[in-house]
């Protein structure tokens, strides 16, 4: 069974929020629920000057996922391909997974009293379609999906970056 990973090269992220809109278009979650969320980050460079970048909060589908352990009703499961799914219909709304997630990547729908997170568009993936955010929507080409080893090779080769059309 192939394993899958969603990898975001945050250095390249411009904070344009196209991934957030693409996710909304695919899943149409309730207003205020952002399964992928981009935030601003301030820090200092090694030279001491101010630095500004973006952080992308989305389920990492961790190898060692604390949310699975935290869930008292076993509503969060790992598939063989590594995709971790939160089954909303089984969620009790206790919020334990939200506290357990180190990436601030699980949202809470108070009206429906349930947690929601990125299920890596498994319905699309199972049909040979890329997750909505990773389907080349990003103008920085900083969202990668696929086999973890292949992603690392693509990044080190500078691939995943669309080649511009040559003028003639």
């Amino acid at each position, binding site marked *: 069974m192939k394993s899958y990973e969603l990898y975001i090269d945050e250095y390249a992220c411009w904070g344009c929020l196209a991934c957030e809109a693409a996710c909304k278009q695919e899943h149409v979650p309730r207003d205020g629920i952002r399964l992928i969320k981009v935030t601003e980050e301030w820090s200092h460079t090694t030279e001491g000057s101010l630095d500004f970048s973006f952080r992308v909060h989305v389920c990492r589908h961790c190898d060692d996922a604390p949310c699975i352990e935290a869930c008292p009703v076993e509503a969060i499961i790992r598939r063989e391909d590594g995709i971790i799914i939160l089954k909303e219909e089984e969620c009790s709304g206790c919020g334990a997974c939200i506290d357990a997630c180190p990436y601030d990547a699980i949202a809470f729908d108070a009206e429906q009293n349930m947690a929601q997170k990125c299920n890596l568009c498994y319905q699309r993936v199972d049909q040979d*379609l890329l997750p909505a955010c990773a389907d080349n929507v990003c103008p920085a080409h900083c969202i990668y999906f696929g086999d973890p080893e292949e992603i690392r090779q693509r990044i080190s080769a500078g691939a995943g970056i669309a080649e*511009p059309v040559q003028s003639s």
Partner: protein
Amino acid sequence: MEFSYGNAAREMEVYGYDSVVKSHCRMCHGGCGVLVYVKDGRAVKVTGDPDCPINHGTLCPKGIASIQLAYHPDRLTYPVKRRGLKGSGEWERISWDEALETIAERILDYKERFGAESIVMGYGTGRDNEAAIYRFANLLGTPNVLTAGHFCYGPRIATSIITCGTNPIVDYENAPRCIMVWGNNIVISNPDEYKGENFSAALNKGAKLIAVDPRLTRIAARADVWLQLRPGTDAALALGMLHVIVNEDLYDEAFVRNHVYGWEPFVERVNEYPPDRVEAITWVPKEKIRQAARLFATTKPAAIQWGVAIEQQINCADNDRLLMALMGVTGNIDARGGQVLFQQPRIRNVGHFGAHRMLPDSQREKRLGGDRFRLAGNFSIINPKCVWDAILDEKPYPVKMLFFISSNPVMTRANARQVYQALEKVEFMAVSDFFLTPTAELADIVLPAATWLEMDYIGDFWKRHGYLLPRRKVIQVGECRSDHEMLNDLAHRVGQGEHWWDTFEQALDWILEPLRITWQEFQKMDYLRGEVTNQKYEVKGFSTPSRKFELYSTLLEQWGYDPLPQFREPLESPYSTPELYERFPYIVITGRRMPGFFHSENRQLPWMRELHRDPVVEIHPDAAAREGIREGDWIIIESPRGRVRQRAKLFPGIDPRVVSAEHAWWFPERNDSGHGWDESNINILTDNAYENCDPAMGATHIRTLLCRIYPENDTGGLL
């Protein structure tokens, strides 16, 4: 299992869509190729078109949210006329026939009684409808078309035509080695030709990056050199960089010798701006100025990604001309990978379609402000205050009718209170738009405009990257009509029929005719592009009076202006008004771009509003502490002319003497007809006095002004 980007065939199978239509998005000033999926007659999904050279399949949040715009429950889907008093919010449904007949009767009546010049047509950022609006106005005989052109894109067109013949565009497809991004946030804004994707790809290929911006954007953070200038001093900074380039002999000597007009007087002018002086003006350390100048001048090819921020200033035309001077003297003009003077396919272009030659000279002479803002006047552009004054004071003649097509001047033009007053007073106003905006609420008749999803058109018809892309109609919403079709119909009702067409598709055929193709043939293509060649000036010179690259503008001289670019201190600043600065101790910059919004648009689209719910003013943490302001507080921003409220965000990437406010905020969710137009609208604070405008272009200086800031609670409930 194989994955591929933008797999339309598989999308169709999996989701059971009925069809997918290739088209061209128009949610901003430019356009991207898109795929629109359709099911049961409704557009249900928008994605990027992988075959489009502008976006290579990527998209921005606005483009994705197009469907929320098209099917928004508040959208106007039939013509209405106002029942009660202006601003009463009482509207009555009418037929297209009644709407257009009423507008036509008014046009003919005002033309008869007060002259065609008493009717002002207008558009905002333009929905690719610019050429049709100019055609209608010129054939009607009014020289008054009120657009954003005095301070947005129009200046780039006007100044580039008088300097080098056309607007030089960054040649992203041939990988510039150095990109200087000047007052522009191309990755989240609404750029004109190429989009963030092309810029991003050029950086990934290793281009050096220089950022000129008062704020630490992500572009500035990634830059090799970031020049954090005092807002409004762009011209001085450019002159300082030119000083370094000229005096260190870093310029392209052969280009200057053979192709530049006015080099010696230009050098004299540049020598008035040595780095010490420029540092004092701009607050940028002179070493950084030297570093940026050297990097830009010695890395080939290099290009400048410029934008609107430098145009909404009193130095508008000279800012543009100085950036072109930087492109020119470094030999990057019309160079591969530099800044190319692209050519369109040989169609009937916007100038031809706009029928400018049909406007009689006797009417052209009546252009409002034409004698004052002569660069603008020569490019059919007017300054907005001229129109408001002509309505309110009836000088030099009365303006009786306004017809705004996709424009919301109450939110987007300086001195919003005067704009509102003028719109309240004008005898008759028609508007074509998607929603009942604060501007539309003051109209007599409002027409339901079509979005890009609802029209056939030649996308990017007026852009300068040489591409034309078919925009194909996907859906019909209510009775909405494209502005082109509406004007084609109205033209027949006011006696212009012989210059228009039976259907607008025939107009598209007419535009394309020189290529010997029809719209039906074109709409089967992905795109067309004009021939790309470089250094065309070697053969035919530049398309200017001297056939040279005019650093010294013979046309500006002829029109009575300084032919050489200069820096003017903004009229309201720490240095020009020090006493005012004591009472208003911050420079407020206005109008930074936010993902999801396009000026006053999209506040009612849930996906976009969720990304940014409230108007936000950025303040340095030190300044916030001094003023007792905390993160998230609603605060008052007050200029000598008024005050508005926005929410504070502590933002370390800005000088503590500068704050950055958002523009064009209104609140469609409010049910009253004003929709909070004056509550957070930064143009309550801006000044539209003629003296506060670029003397040649009429660009209103709205980007920097003085203000004070304080927590809203301190007002004692005055707001």
